């Protein structure tokens, strides 16, 4: 990892102060180490800072993202040479991995923990963990987390043996809890909420500035499955 130069940090810091954005910085130590600054700003603030217009784009699945329109954006000379990337601006989300939700709730049918046990022959003495030393883990990213009520409902309806086996949360993001759907399989494992487009789900407009090198203000037209819909709000 290449930490930003002290010159870059000073320049961006004074840019933040001169634009009265001190209260908008939501960066944490981890993000800073990676060279990111995160600002929580309104669309209007973002448009003023970047001299641009944000539009809401939608894809064929109805996902919405807010991006800069085709005329692009620019950033103050004071920080231009220190900033390599500002997101979200002109880069559209690539299709991401995630469980594909089907449209309607079901009660019967589908693969359940009991069905998994039957299909894979998980019976007998080894069917439930007993060792006090053994642990299993899942890893989540992109600020995703489960919803406790959904986890408990999963236990009640589909995996009563797992009830109460709350996971221990570990990692640099362990204090931050954001809504994510849960899925407990077998010994209580979880699925991330389908987030094809993580930036679309942020509660307010977050700008990420990556301090690493020269800023390239390339304007890019949306890839073909994103269509401009309306002014961002």
């Amino acid at each position, binding site marked *: 990892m290449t930490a930003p130069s002290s010159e870059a940090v000073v320049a961006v810091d004074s840019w933040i102060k001169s634009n009265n954005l001190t209260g908008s910085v939501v960066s944490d130590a981890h993000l800073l180490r990676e060279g990111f600054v995160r600002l929580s700003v309104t669309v209007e603030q973002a448009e003023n800072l970047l001299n641009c217009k944000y539009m809401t784009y939608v894809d064929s699945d109805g996902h919405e993202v807010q991006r800069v329109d085709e005329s692009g954006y620019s950033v103050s000379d004071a920080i231009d040479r220190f900033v390599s990337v500002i997101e979200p601006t002109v880069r559209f989300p690539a299709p991401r*991995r995630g*469980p594909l939700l089907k449209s309607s709730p*079901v009660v019967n049918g589908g693969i359940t923990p009991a069905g998994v046990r039957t*299909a894979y022959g998980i019976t007998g003495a080894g069917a439930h963990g007993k*060792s006090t030393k053994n642990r*299993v883990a*899942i890893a989540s*990213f992109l600020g995703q987390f489960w919803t406790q009520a959904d986890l408990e*409902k999963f236990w009640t309806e589909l995996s009563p043996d797992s009830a109460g086996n709350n996971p221990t949360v570990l990692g640099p993001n362990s204090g931050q809890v954001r809504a994510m759907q849960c899925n407990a399989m077998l010994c209580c494992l979880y699925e991330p909420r389908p987030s094809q487009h993580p930036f679309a789900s942020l509660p307010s407009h977050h700008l990420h500035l990556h301090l690493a090198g020269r800023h390239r203000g390339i304007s890019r037209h949306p890839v073909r499955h994103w269509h401009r819909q309306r002014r961002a709000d």
Partner: protein
Amino acid sequence: MPTDAWSTAGQQPHNPENEPFLVWLTNVAAQSDDRVAKAISVSYGDNEPGVNFDYATRVAQEFMKQGARGISIMFSSGDGGVAGGQPSPCAQGRFIPTFPAAIPYVTAVGGTDPSNVKAAGLSSGGFSDYWERPKYQVDAVKAYMASGVPMPDPTHYNSTGAGFPDVAAFAEDVIIVADGNQFPVSGTSCASPIFTGVVSLINDLRMQAGKGSLGWLNPTLYSAKGSFLTDITSGNNPGCNTNGFEAAKGWDPVTGWGVPNFQAMSKQLVSA
């Protein structure tokens, strides 16, 4: 079974919409051998071309280290068939391998449909453009290519790259609870935690017997020719305007060696 949930915010340094695997791995490395979970599932990933190669190499080294200290790491192989983590446009018809699933130091989990005998069409698999084929896999891939199954044109993929996935599990119509309702979801994001649950049960039996955890699974899996799994021999993983690869007897780049057979795993991986 005690469960940990790693939560890592932020993004990759070179690609703000990707996951910071390296940050997470340094935290896993910092946990003591006694405390750290010995089977870990990750349902996140990217397309290989979207990940800086130097960064990817560094991440691969960390996976190697964690495997060597007794941790089995499972990754969902992806949901786009041969066309990446999600169905994507393929430049000149070139198949899109996924990251980190294709790294030999992790165990990539592909998918089956609810019948448990057929590959899920979404199951990502194929051959890496980043990683050379590991020695333990050479015979398995050779056997697949010589088996006579219909193969895509060789211009679509790197015929000397590491093959993936290694194994498979359910990846269609898996029931979860979201926003208070049961939903069926599809994706290898389901297959990875399901397979990991089984691995962890085997670790549990081993520990009860005073043995260590399984650790990096792939060499054991390939030297046993997948004999503790149930082979999946039908279905394929279409993408890039092709039928993708065909599932076949033995290892294949759609479902690997197949799905868990818990009784066989208990015999071969615990008692033996």
